[in-house]
C-alpha cells in the first residue's frame, strides 16, 4: 500500500491557500460503472479536493429525487457494492482521497472489518455514514482505529451542544455539517442555519467542518466556503450527468466542477 494522504491533510493544505476544500459526490455505477469512474477522475482534474464516492442503495432515505433516481438506475443496471473499490482505486490514482458515502446496512452485510480492509487495500480514505450515529458505531470505530480510516459522522441544525460534542469526538478527518434540515438536493439558497451550525460545531472541536446539502453553484460554493472548511456538492453534479449522453454529461460535469472550484477559491 502506498502512503495515502487523508482528508484532514488535504483540508489543511486548502486552508494554507486560504480557501475551503471542494468535496464532490457522485454515486458509483451511474450512469454505468465505467462512466461513473471516469466522472470521478474528471472531478479531480477539474479541481475537486476530496471525492465522496456514493454506493447505490435500495432505500436511500437521506436522499432527494435527483440522487434517488440516479442510484435506482445504477441498481437496475446491475451495480454491485464491490464496484466501489474500483472507484476508490481510480480516485486515489487521480490524486484525491476517496471517502465512501454509504448506508450502513451495506457495510454490515459485507462485515465491518472485511469492508474496512478492502477499503484500505483499494486506496479508500474512510467512510461517511449518513444513517449511523456514533452511539451505534462501536464496531466501526474499532475497525477504523485499527486501519486508520477516516470516519465522518454528520451533525445537523437540530443537534444540541451535547450531541455536537458526542458526534465530533467520534469523527476523524472532518465533520459533515448538514446545512438544512432535509434530504439531499439543490436549493436556491443555503441559508443562515449552515453558518450557525458551523460556528456551534467549531466551538466544540478542532476538526475541519465541511458543509453539505443544497450547494449547486459557484456562487453558493463561494458563500459557504467563506465560513466552512469544505463545501460538499452532490445533487448538482449528479444532475449534470442525468438525462445526457455520457460524453455530453461528462463535459457538463467538468464545466460545473470548474465553476465550483473557482467558487471555493474566491470566497474569502
Amino acid at each position, binding site marked *: 500500500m502506498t502512503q495515502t494522504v487523508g482528508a484532514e491533510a488535504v483540508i489543511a493544505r486548502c486552508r494554507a491557500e486560504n480557501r475551503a476544500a471542494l468535496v464532490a459526490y457522485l454515486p458509483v455505477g451511474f450512469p454505468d460503472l465505467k462512466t461513473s469512474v471516469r466522472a470521478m477522475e474528471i472531478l479531480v482534474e477539474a479541481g475537486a479536493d476530496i471525492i465522496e464516492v456514493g454506493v447505490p*442503495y*435500495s*432505500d*436511500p*432515505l*437521506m436522499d*432527494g429525487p435527483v440522487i*434517488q433516481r440516479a442510484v*435506482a438506475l445504477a*441498481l437496475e443496471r446491475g451495480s*454491485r*457494492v464491490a464496484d466501489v473499490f474500483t472507484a476508490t482505486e481510480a480516485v486515489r490514482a487521480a490524486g484525491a482521497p476517496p471517502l465512501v458515502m454509504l*448506508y*450502513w*446496512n*451495506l*457495510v*454490515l*452485510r*459485507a462485515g465491518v472489518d472485511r469492508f474496512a480492509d478492502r477499503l484500505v487495500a483499494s486506496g479508500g480514505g474512510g467512510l461517511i455514514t*449518513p*444513517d*449511523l*450515529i456514533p*452511539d*451505534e458505531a*462501536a464496531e466501526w470505530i474499532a475497525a477504523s482505529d485499527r486501519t486508520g480510516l477516516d470516519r465522518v*459522522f*454528520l*451533525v*445537523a*441544525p*437540530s*443537534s*444540541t451542544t451535547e*450531541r455536537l460534542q458526542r*458526534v465530533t469526538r467520534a469523527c476523524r478527518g472532518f465533520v459533515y455539517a*448538514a446545512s438544512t*434540515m*432535509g*434530504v439531499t438536493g439543490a436549493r436556491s439558497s443555503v441559508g443562515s442555519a449552515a453558518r450557525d451550525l458551523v460556528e456551534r460545531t467549531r466551538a466544540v472541536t478542532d476538526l475541519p467542518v465541511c458543509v453539505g446539502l443544497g450547494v449547486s453553484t459557484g456562487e453558493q460554493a463561494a458563500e459557504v466556503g467563506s465560513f466552512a472548511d469544505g463545501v460538499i456538492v452532490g445533487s448538482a453534479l449528479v444532475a449534470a450527468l442525468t438525462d445526457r449522453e455520457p460524453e455530453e454529461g461528462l463535459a457538463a460535469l467538468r464545466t460545473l466542477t470548474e465553476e465550483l472550484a473557482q467558487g471555493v477559491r474566491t470566497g474569502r
Partner: protein
Amino acid sequence: MTDGRFGAFGGRYVPEALIPALEQLDEARSKAMLDPGFLGELDRLHRTYTGRPSIVTEVPRFAEHCGGARVVLKREDLNHTGSHKINNVLAQALLTQRMGKSRVIAETGAGQHGVATATAAALLGLDCRVYMGRVDTERQALNVARMRMLGAEVVPVSTGSATLKDAINEALRDWVTNVGTTHYLLGTVTGPHPFPEMVRDFHRIIGVEARGQILDLAGRLPDAVIACVGGGSNAMGIFHRFIDDEGVRLVGVEAGGEGIASGRHAARFASSSPGVLHGTFSYLMQDDDGQTIESHSISAGLDYPSVGPEHSYLRDSGRAEYRYATDEQAMRAFELLCRTEGIIPAIESAHALAGAMEVGSELGPESLLLVNLSGRGDKDVHTAARWFGLLDDAAADGGGDA
C-alpha cells in the same frame, strides 16, 4: 449501543438530524405513561371513542376446521376505524399535542393505519399527511377515499416497489425536513427507538383485556396465542401480557405469499438474516449486497421486508414461534370465517386464522386457542371478490375497492 435493544435487535440507525426528535419523543412518552392525566384521557378515548374493551367471540363452527380445538377471537376488528391500529394512533396523537406539534405524518400499507391516523388528526385538530405506496393505493382504494374524506392528504409513492417500505422512506424524508412541527406517527413496532417499545406499549391493552376475558370464558389460559405479523404491532400487543405465562405458546404468522420457493413472500423468519432497515436492526429480506429485497403478499398490511426487532428477539430466544400462511391458505381461512361465523376478516387477520387451523390440528381437540382478529375485511372486499371470482367481468375490470 443505545437504549431500546431487544437482545441484539433494535437500536437507532437514523440520521443525526432526527436524534433530538427521538429523544424528545422518548422523554414525552416516558412521562406520559406515568401521568394520570394522559392515561385518563387515553382511557376515556378507548371507552367512548374506540369502543374498548373489544369483545372476544368463541367461534365453534370455524373451530371444526382447526382440529376441533376451542377457538376464541379477540375482536379488534370491531374497533372504530376497523382495526387494532387505532390503539396506537390515539395515544401517539395525544403525545403529539403534548410535544406542542401541530402536524402528523404517517405511512400506510393496507390503509388501516392511515385511516386511523386521519381519524385521530380530525378528532384532535392536527394537520395530517399520509404516504402510501402507489400499488397499495390501487389495491386499497377504498381506504384512500376514507382518508381524504377525513381531511388527510394522501401522497402516493411511486419509488422502489411502491409499497409500504417506500412509503416509510418518504415519510422519513418528510420527517427529517419538518421535524420541528411534525410528529411521525409510525404505525407498527419497528423503526428507531423508542418506536418499537412505545407502539407495543400502546397495543398492550389487547393482551391485557384478552387474558382476563379468556380466563372468564374458559377458566384457564390459552394453549396458544396466535396473531399475524406484518411489522408486528397487533402481535406484540396481544403477546406481551402472556410472555411470562410460560405454558402459553406465542405464534406469529407471516405472509407466505406465493410460497417461499417462489421468492414472492414476506416470510422474513423463514428466509432471511438480520440487517438494518428504517432505523432498526432486525430480520430483513436482503440480497448478498445488503440491498432490500421486495416482499410480496396478497395482504398489503403484511407486505414488508423487515419485522419489528422485538419479534426477532422473541424468535431467537425461542419464546415465540413464527410460521407463515400462503396467499392460498389465508384466503381459504378468510372464506371459512365468512361462511361459518358471519365475520369478514381483514386479509391480514386471515393469516392468523390460517395459522390457527394448523396449530389446532397439531394440538388437538382439548386445546384452547386465542386468535387476534386484528381487523375487518371491508377494505378487502374487492381483492377477495376478485380472488373468488365473485364479480361479473365489468366490475372485475373496474379496479379499486368499493
